[in-house]
């Protein structure tokens, strides 16, 4: 299998607080890895480290075998291949929907305007937002913003897409739309790492589930292994508590 990202002995500390200890995992092409775990377990921090929005304190992240922390590694080129969808959408407030989808293509991929516009429309179409191309982001609902944010990331033709709780800030009736788009992307073979509290989604869509607890990967495996036969007591407790709150 084609390995895209390898995380090796990753450690991250904020001031005194050690948030991630010795994290190890690989992401292969076409895989959908979901990361679950209770609040504060370090899920977001892990994704942010992979995108280099946070600096690691120790360990390595390899991209096709290349250490992304090497001095001469082209971080911006790497980031254009490893996209990110944020919990809070982070659409550019000064730009329209269409411009949000074009700016990265033009500035980073150096596509010309016509091509960028065409590609932007293609992906806006895909997320059902092409009718909003000339709206500003302030005029959109949360679910619409997140769909545009996904289109913006797709426009870069990423190899891997990182999602940090993409539906947590949404009204319940908007969640389904966004999850359906993500399912579709998964079915098309896009490699994704998804931090989520949507257990149904994790069960249905992921090829692998990673359960994090207090800064370590406590357990990982197929959805069946994690949801039906969790081995670790911590995983069992987490899932039990989760099911309870859901009822």
């Amino acid at each position, binding site marked *: 299998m084609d390995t895209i990202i390898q995380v090796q002995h990753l450690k991250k500390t904020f001031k005194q607080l050690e948030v991630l200890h010795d994290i190890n995992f690989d992401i292969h092409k076409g895989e959908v890895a979901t990361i679950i775990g209770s609040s504060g377990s370090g899920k977001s921090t892990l994704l942010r480290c992979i995108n280099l929005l946070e600096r690691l304190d120790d360990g390595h992240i390899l991209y096709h075998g290349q250490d992304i922390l090497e001095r001469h590694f082209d971080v911006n080129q790497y980031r254009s291949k490893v996209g990110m969808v944020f919990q809070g959408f982070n659409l550019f407030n000064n730009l329209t929907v269409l411009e949000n989808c074009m*700016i990265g293509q033009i500035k980073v991929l150096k596509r010309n305007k016509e091509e960028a516009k065409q590609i932007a429309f293609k992906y806006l179409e895909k997320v059902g937002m092409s009718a909003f191309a000339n709206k500003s982001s302030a005029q959109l609902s949360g679910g619409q913003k997140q769909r545009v*944010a996904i289109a913006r990331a797709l426009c870069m033709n990423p190899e891997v897409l990182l999602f940090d709780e993409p539906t947590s800030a949404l009204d319940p009736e908007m969640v389904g739309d966004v999850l359906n788009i993500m399912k579709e992307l998964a079915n098309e073979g896009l490699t994704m790492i998804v931090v989520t509290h949507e257990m149904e989604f994790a069960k249905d869509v992921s090829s692998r589930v990673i359960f994090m607890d207090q800064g370590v990967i406590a357990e990982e495996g197929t959805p069946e292994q994690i949801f039906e036969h969790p081995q670790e007591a911590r995983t069992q407790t987490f899932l039990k508590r989760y099911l309870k709150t859901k009822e």
Partner: protein
Amino acid sequence: MSIDFAKAWEIFVENISLFSYGIQITLLYAVVGTVCGFLIGLVVGGIRAIEINDYDSSVSRLFKRLGKWITSFYIWVFRGTPMMVQAMFLYYLLKPAFNWTPLVAGLFIISINTGAYMAEIIRAGIQSVDAGQSEAAKSLGMTTSQTLISVIFPQAIKNTFPSIGNQLIVNIKDSSMLNVISVTELYFQTTSVAGSNMKYIECFLVAAIIYLFLTTISTFILNYIEKRLNSEKQSKDFCS
């Protein structure tokens, strides 16, 4: 105490060319000072808003520190001393080197003075932009300067536009201080007129009304631009 309004009008009409020259210079100073000060403010405010991270290499940390030290010194000095004193000091200090006229020296001084105020406005504007905006730009692979120019500055400027615009109003009035180096702006011209006819009250009534007129018009224009900014469906150059 009495004001002879008819006399004031007469003085204004008689000296219209002197006053109108003064108005032109005052407007020149207000506009050039605000525009150049704004550009200085973008650079200096940008440097002031740079974050020093503990993972930066020691060389880049040194440069960032140096940049911050120089810019805060500049702001400290120019906001902490009167422009009149700055004008006298710099005009005579740099005269041998540049051999400059009061007109040019004055433009330099009002720009660099405004820049110090603009820098603090723009720094606050940059810091008012949500961190998620630059994270999103980074996550697309945009460089720091692309992020600043395309994402951060436009929002910082929009957020602080009332304060930026206010500097134009301030400069219309404060350019009068440059009379100390004989810049022939409105205040200086008024002094000349008053010196020849000795009608100080009437002359300065004329000046006050002209200043009020200029600041009022400018306020209207700024309010109009602000409204436009807030409702604008921006279509950026890279998209049209």
